């Protein structure tokens, strides 16, 4: 290890992955702003009541706002589907293999490392070692899995919420309405989950690990950072002769 130049920068992210990340972030922000503008009753009230009034006024009524929200969502879904089809083997599949938490044992392991990580932010468990992490650490893997799951749910439920009332006669079959109501619950629940996850994501990117934010702009990250935070990944890169 001593013979390795750890101060070097290494290119770890392709340009199209970076563009996709920022496209995803931007469009989700717009979906959030328009989505909270659509919800008008007290049934779902996270933002103050002035927000839907302001947004609906800005777009000339809730009908237009719903349409804008839906068009944005369909652009988001369309671009993602296209990206997945075109980059499945070289980007998407390797990413999924690394990030998805699918077994209880890996979930427990990631939860443990995430908990220690969070407690250390508050000066607790300072001396408890965190198990060596791969390219994505426990918190990133849990967040990634949650975001992927929620995104799929948001896309499917959103499509039904928009197209269901247009193409299905709800009075013909009570199931159509019941599905709508449950999909609304699922849609809103996933929005809440995504927001809570993204708060942590933004905090870590800006405050704790700005190197990661830089990597999401230039695609480069220092080998030192990888060696310190992602030991297993460092070993992998070393084996591949990239560092």
């Amino acid at each position, binding site marked *: 290890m001593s013979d390795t130049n750890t101060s070097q920068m290494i290119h770890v992210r392709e340009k199209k992955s970076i563009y996709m990340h920022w496209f995803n972030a931007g469009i989700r922000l717009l979906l959030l702003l328009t989505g909270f503008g659509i919800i*008008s009753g*007290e049934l779902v009230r*996270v933002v103050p009541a002035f927000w839907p009034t302001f947004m609906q006024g800005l777009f000339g009524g809730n009908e237009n706002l719903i349409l804008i929200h839906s068009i944005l969502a369909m652009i988001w879904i369309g671009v993602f589907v296209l990206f997945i089809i075109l980059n499945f083997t070289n980007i998407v599949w390797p990413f999924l293999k690394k990030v998805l938490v699918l077994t209880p044992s890996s979930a427990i392991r990631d939860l443990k490392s995430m908990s220690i990580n969070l407690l250390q932010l508050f*000066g607790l468990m300072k001396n408890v070692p965190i198990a060596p992490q791969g390219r994505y650490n426990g918190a990133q893997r849990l967040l990634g899995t949650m975001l992927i799951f929620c995104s799929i749910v948001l896309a499917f439920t959103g499509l039904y919420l928009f197209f269901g009332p247009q193409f299905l*006669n*709800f009075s013909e079959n009570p199931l159509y309405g019941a599905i709508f*109501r449950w999909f609304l619950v699922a849609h809103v629940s996933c929005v809440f989950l995504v927001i809570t996850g993204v708060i942590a994501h933004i905090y870590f990117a800006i405050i704790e690990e700005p190197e990661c934010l830089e990597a999401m702009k230039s695609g480069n990250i220092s080998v030192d950072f990888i060696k310190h935070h992602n030991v297993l990944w460092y070993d992998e890169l070393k084996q591949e002769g990239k560092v």
Partner: protein
Amino acid sequence: MTKKYVMLADTVRCINCKACVVACRAEWETPMGYTRDWVKEVEWVQNDQPKVMLFPGRCQHCDDAPCIEACPSGAAYKRADGLVLQDNCICSGCELCVPACPYEARWLNPVTNTISKCTFCQPRIDKGLEPACVQTCVGRALIFGDMNDQESEVSKLLKEKEWVRLTTDEVNIGPNHYYYTAGEALPDEVMPKLHDRHLSGKTMEIVNPIGAIAIGGMLLTFLGAGVMKLIGRRNEVSTSENQEEK
């Protein structure tokens, strides 16, 4: 002064001719088997004498309309003049508002695939006309108008007679529909009742506060972490400065 529309129903004058129902159905072209207004007939025996009371009913245009709270898209809304209206362009027909109404005034229209309800004939009253049911009522049992206008017929009648509203201890949401019963007690059959909401609606009532608390909790947690980071950084700097001074 802002208008405040109310409907008065004199149950003594109602003869159950159902002209109001026919007029409403004609005005709004409601599908077969569906109507936005009705006349409820309540019969009972008092001192061996059969008695009947007739209650013309419709949306009560409540001040605290629970249908508006239940509607997720804002399709159900209240106008400044007190009318509770339904925007068909936004309504998805999800029916979350249907069990929310304790007067059973909302239903899913199988033709439009949206929720239908009495609007006090809003397009007619905006043109200065009376609601179709009021115009057609042969016994003048239905009277409609602006209660904030002291010269209006409804204002005068409200002062002249003792009117009651269909409210209970459990359901008191400010209905704007008044009834005159000539002192007869209101029968239980016409009183508003709380209905079982859809399970999905109840779930949403749990999800919403949990979501709000989770988001608030996360914001506070990471705000706290940021402050800790700032304090730690300040301590680091002052320690290194002290060392340099030494």
